[in-house]
């Protein structure tokens, strides 16, 4: 029974990790193209849940509300990028890159305070796609979490196919590997950056719509998720979408098992393990095994 129980815990961790990894994949995509970490990534996770709440109280069915929330986040991401000065959109120097990170961080804080004012800081009721659960060796699997995991896996596959086979996907990959050469071949840097950013934050928003029915959403929901996304991206390999998938599952399994055996030290042990992995393989698990994306 104990083996079955551990297996169920690990399965629960994979389920959790798949959705987190999706958010991390978005972060990785943005990093790969912009060469910069999106410090407002958690905000888009939170916005996904918040928009889902708003659309649900407007009377939209949950699946439609999710689609609109994700599409709106995509559009918002593009708008944010085009609102940045050109030197911050495509950072040439490390100073520009740092300034971009700071600017996005300020944006994230401003959005949090705005939502505090609008919502009073309370947790908002976000509707689930499905209600109900079953248990496997005492571990509960809600239908919402299963749908979230399946959708995440499907979106991963779609993203991988998009990047590998579509013209725009190839342009994104080319730009991420060599900006100057890609631009010389006719790839428009600004548009690619905006598109990649839009896709990246849309993935964060999708994660938000899938997880906030389980964990709730309020104005500060994005910060913890941002840190987890950073961890997964670092573990999986910066710029590697597949790495984010692997990193997410490792994180999810590790979290699930450690919080069963040693809940007080879960984060400490998890971070030490990840630190050791980074020491042994600084580029992350998938950092050099496959080309970017």
């Amino acid at each position, binding site marked *: 029974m104990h083996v079955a*129980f551990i297996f*169920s*815990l690990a399965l*629960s961790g994979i389920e*959790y990790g798949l959705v987190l990894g999706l958010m991390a994949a978005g972060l990785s995509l943005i990093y790969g193209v912009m060469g910069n970490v999106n410090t407002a990534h958690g905000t888009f996770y939170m916005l996904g849940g918040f928009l889902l709440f708003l659309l649900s109280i407007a009377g939209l069915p949950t699946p439609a509300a999710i689609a609109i929330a994700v599409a709106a986040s995509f559009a918002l991401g593009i708008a944010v990028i085009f609102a940045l000065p050109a030197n911050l959109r495509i950072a040439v120097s490390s100073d520009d890159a740092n300034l971009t990170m700071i600017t996005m961080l300020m944006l994230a804080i401003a959005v949090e*305070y705005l939502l*505090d004012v609008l919502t*009073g*800081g*309370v*947790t*908002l*009721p*976000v*509707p*689930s796609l499905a*209600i109900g*659960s*079953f*248990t496997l*060796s*005492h*571990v*509960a699997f*809600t239908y919402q979490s299963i749908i979230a995991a399946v959708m995440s896996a499907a979106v991963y596959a779609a993203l991988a196919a998009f990047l590998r086979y579509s013209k725009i996907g190839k342009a994104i990959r080319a730009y991420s590997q060599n900006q100057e050469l890609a631009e010389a071949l006719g790839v428009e840097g600004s548009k690619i950056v905006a598109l990649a950013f839009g896709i990246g934050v849309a993935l964060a928003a999708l994660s938000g719509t899938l997880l906030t*029915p*389980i*964990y*709730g959403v*309020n*104005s*500060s929901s994005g910060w*913890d998720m941002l840190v987890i996304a950073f961890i997964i991206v670092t573990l999986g390999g910066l710029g590697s979408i597949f790495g984010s998938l692997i990193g997410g599952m490792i994180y999810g399994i590790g*979290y*699930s*098992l450690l*919080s*069963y055996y040693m*809940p*007080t030290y*879960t*984060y400490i042990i998890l971070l030490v393990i990840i630190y050791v992995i980074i020491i042994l393989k600084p580029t992350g698990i998938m950092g050099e095994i496959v080309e970017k994306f």
Partner: protein
Amino acid sequence: MAIIAAAAGGAYAYYNSATSASRAPILIGLEAPLSGSYAPSGEQVLQGAELAVAQVNSQGGVLGHPLKIIAQDEGPTTSTAIQAAQILVEQDHVQFLIGPYWSGDVAAVMPYLYQHKVLEILTVSAVDSFMKPPYNAYTFRVGEDDHQNALLAVAFLNMTHARTFVYLGEDYLWTHEVYNFTLQMLPQYGVSATLLWAAYYPGSATDYSSAIAKIAATHPDAVLVYMSGENSIDFIKQYVSNPTTRNIPVLLVDTPLILPSYAQSVQAAIPGGINYVFIGAPTDYVPGVTDKFFALTQKEYGYSASIFAPDAYDAVMILAQAIQRAGTLNTTAVAQAMMVTNYTGPGGHVVFTPQHTPVVGYGYKTGTIYQVVIQNGAIYYERVWPPYVANFTAVNPATGQPYQ
């Protein structure tokens, strides 16, 4: 004529200055989280205090002076809490302070307030280990107390006839303290429940599926959960999603689930899920008094349940009475006057121990246990303990029948 006019003008100016000086407000600082995810709780502290100030001022103030609250946001870190205290003391010159909210901030700020002889009243932080000389010389606690939190656990285990239980808490000092007090108090109250296991979770945790799976696997008769804020909401959503654990009676202490907005968010996510969940509120229910207070909060602020507003109200009232008794604003004298407090307000009956904490037990501060009951989609908070204020017989979630 000119001389008369000048004399009249001078007399009028003198009259104005004299009455202005006698109406100079007594400043009461207040530190609470007024931004971020704990802002709703912090604002309730402020609102409770302001209601008391309005009440006192409507009756002529204290020693001829009106009271005035000056609030500062405690912020998300200890350094912002210290900064807030410094602003209140050094810029606003307050001699009395309500708060801070968080225990870590209380520990950081206490030495500073002691040095400046600022009389501090805690309404949320419940850690007993801080209430020791010399720093507790000017510090009093009227609200939540960890002995009281432990008493809620003992009462719950007794009420549910639990023979075994598990204890889960956020990994903060107060939950460890409550755990120790609970184990000490069980034999004192003749309750023979056995602890199966205890675990503490990081404050930033959101996923409790492993913990809940362990509860389902070990199947205790009752579960004690000491988590505040969003953590308790995350926990209970996952707890009631597990078909096994939702039938095991669970007591949530210090949870915002007592607020209808949070309960509705959980109800929306899992309809009927929180039916028969127990809530331990650190404030007492005093018939006639608490109802009247919550009628006022409903009218002024739109809510009729709170674990923060009553104690903040009581803090101001107790302080006002102590200043009146002392006849001075000298904080040493007021602190001495505080020691003879015998006050009953919406948060309960307050008498101070030598450690400046509220006496805990029947007839004094006990806290209140509620059971959430959902009928036709509407959420009700039924009082099930203490027996002398209960209006409902607690229901076993596994059977749907009252406990005998």
